[in-house]
């Protein structure tokens, strides 16, 4: 059984919110309050509660907004995020995206890939042109996700979900993953997870 250290806190918090009457009457909680709800899964300090839940702290703003938009519309299907996003309006999504983009991406302490895996990953990335959108350090930008330092399991699952189209909100990514072998995808997820790119961030953006 999975451990959820924040499970009880989150449940109590949400219950408190429900029972305290209208949020407006007490003065609307700031965005930090709203973000606490996200922390239930995505982590109070940005480290998600499990390896299948992606880091969103420090993720790129346009990408975060588009995922919330796509969860709501159903073009990206997820049993948890769907209902949550359904309650958000566009302004909410933009505000949440802006909030999380400003946070610092946590160090998940994943090891650097060994040389042979890194070489295989770099060849695969160069072949379909990943850096053209995800940029040199896989930091992404705008609507393109940061990949560097994301959970390996999440990267692996995501690339494969693009590949079999079970993640349906980017056919271009699906095509690129279809053209990439599962062996290359495994190397990519290990390589990307182990990248430490703090030194390269903020190059003029």
């Amino acid at each position: 059984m999975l451990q959820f250290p924040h499970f009880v806190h989150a449940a109590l918090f949400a219950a408190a919110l429900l029972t305290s009457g209208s949020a407006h009457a007490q003065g609307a909680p700031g965005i930090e309050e709203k973000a606490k709800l996200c922390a239930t899964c995505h982590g109070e300090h940005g480290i998600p509660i499990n390896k299948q839940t992606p880091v969103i702290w420090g993720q790129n703003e346009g990408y975060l907004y588009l995922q919330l938009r796509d969860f709501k519309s159903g073009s990206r299907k997820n049993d948890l995020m769907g209902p949550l996003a359904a309650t958000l309006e566009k302004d909410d999504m933009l505000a949440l995206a802006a909030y999380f983009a400003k946070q610092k991406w946590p160090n998940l302490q994943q090891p650097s890939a060994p040389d042979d895996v890194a070489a295989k990953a770099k060849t695969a990335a160069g072949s379909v042109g990943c850096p053209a959108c995800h940029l040199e350090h896989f930091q992404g930008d705008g609507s393109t996700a940061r990949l560097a330092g994301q959970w390996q399991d999440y990267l692996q699952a995501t690339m494969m979900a693009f590949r079999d189209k079970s993640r349906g909100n980017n056919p271009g990514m699906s095509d690129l993953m279809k053209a990439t072998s599962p062996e290359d995808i495994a190397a990519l997820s290990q390589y990307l997870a182990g990248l430490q790119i703090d030194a390269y961030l903020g190059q003029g953006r």
Partner: protein
Amino acid sequence: MVRCKMAGALVSALVIGFAGVNLHQALAQEETPAAPTTKHKDAPVASVSQEQLSGAAGDENNFLHTNGNYEQTRYYPGKQINTSNVGKLRPAWIFQTEVKESLETTPIVVGEVMYVTTSFNHVYAINAKTGEAYWHYKHKMGPVTTYCCGPNNRGVAIHGDKVFMGTLDSKLVALDAKTGSLIWQTDIAEPELGYSETMAPTAVDGKILIGTNGGEYGIRGFVRAYDAETGKLLWNFHTIPEDSTGVWATHDATGKDMHRDIEAEKAALKKLGDPYKTLGGGVWQNPAVDLKSKRIFFVVGNPSPDLDGSIRPGDNLYTNSLVSVNLDTGEYVCHFQYIAHDVWDLDAVSPPILVDVKNKDGKSVPGVIHAGKTGNVYVHNRDDCSLIRFSEAMVDQTGMWSLPTPEGTPMLPGANGGVEWSPMAVNPELGLTYAVNLHQPMTYHVESSPYPGGKLWLGGAFKVIPGSEQFGNVTAVDYNTGKIAWQKKTPLPMMGGALATAGGLVFTGEGDGWFRAYDAKSGDVLWSFFASAGVNAPPASYNVDGKQYIVVGAGGNVQLDFKRGNNIIAFTVD
């Protein structure tokens, strides 16, 4: 897929919790953003008149247009730096921008002031003699920026007392040329639908002309004119007409069979209707302007989705075409399509050049030339866009027009060309045009998917064949005969562009950091400089206080993954 298993009750609680929080009030508490311009001092720049802009081809002092002049010849008229002394060319100054990322800007020089742009839409005004910064503008970027090939920017346009730039979040900004402060900003098109800008605009007659990115995202492309004073839209030309089907051409402009299944396409057309709304057709580079006839000439990019033609039957007009429209109204005048129903992303991107050419009868006529991603230089009649000739192929075209398959089919040229967005330069005395080429073996893969609402939509993938030999060329083509005059191989595929000068030189840079001067007649390398980052931007030249400078950006390139840097380097002969 998120496998955070939680009790249904808690999910509901979270949902209700979310709904109860008002984010709008939270937004009001956001801090005021910092002003986007840092000014050290006013740039000592005079207003730029239309007369100056029109006379740029003969102006040795300034470099007023991204491609040198309205004809886009990239031919600098000064001779001070020439074949006899270029060997002594040395850096006069190096300016370092804040942005270490893909650098594709052409420096614009007015008097002693130089304007350069960087990835992520910074603009610097710097002293063209010393490299000292006057001011630095940093565009306040929206959250959604949709670009296929790097966050780069190709430069500003200058007109009157303002400089103009297109941004990654599909806006057009006008800055005070002296102080860098933002004067106006106009939304061009919706970034969520895949629109963005990396091209430099063109300024003419109080109008700012600009195209759009987005051929990888299912846009409907355009060229527009905005009012230079106010930013208001003056006219819009759709690069995709509502009837995009055309003439069902089965062969390309060079006469090669493109293996179209016309019957299948006609059946698809009956079923799907005209695909014009999401057919692509971005315009990546500046239009050439013919002031006498009041017409502009530009080339249109690929259809969307790039590789999957099954859902976009017809010739897909005016993708992969030379197009001419009226400068004042944007009305269509003529077009010539290089590739009908392209399924290889071999689109028309390198900016067209207006130059007198010999027609089929040997008579000199006003012409338009363009270097295709296909690897041929095309030579047209300016009056009706018709094709006079096409050059010998500058690159290997083995297997050309092999259809993409799910498993991937090899074909040359690869999807970057041929010739990419890199502008050519012309030496009108020699009748030569200079193109920088790529040789990158790739496999073309096709996959069908429906329009994804502004997300990446390639209809497949292009894969570089691992381990295959890649290289580039600098090629001089005689546009009056179509013959290759000379060709020099380079170790890496080329991206950036060329500058030709009246001193008999051609300048162009390479991805490993080399920046070279070639003898325009023979192709001999006369000078080389190692810039330590990819020189993947078009060079420029200007003269201040009687001294000629060559200037180029060295910041690498994201599309070819060339070493990044952040330098603008100006050279003189001491």
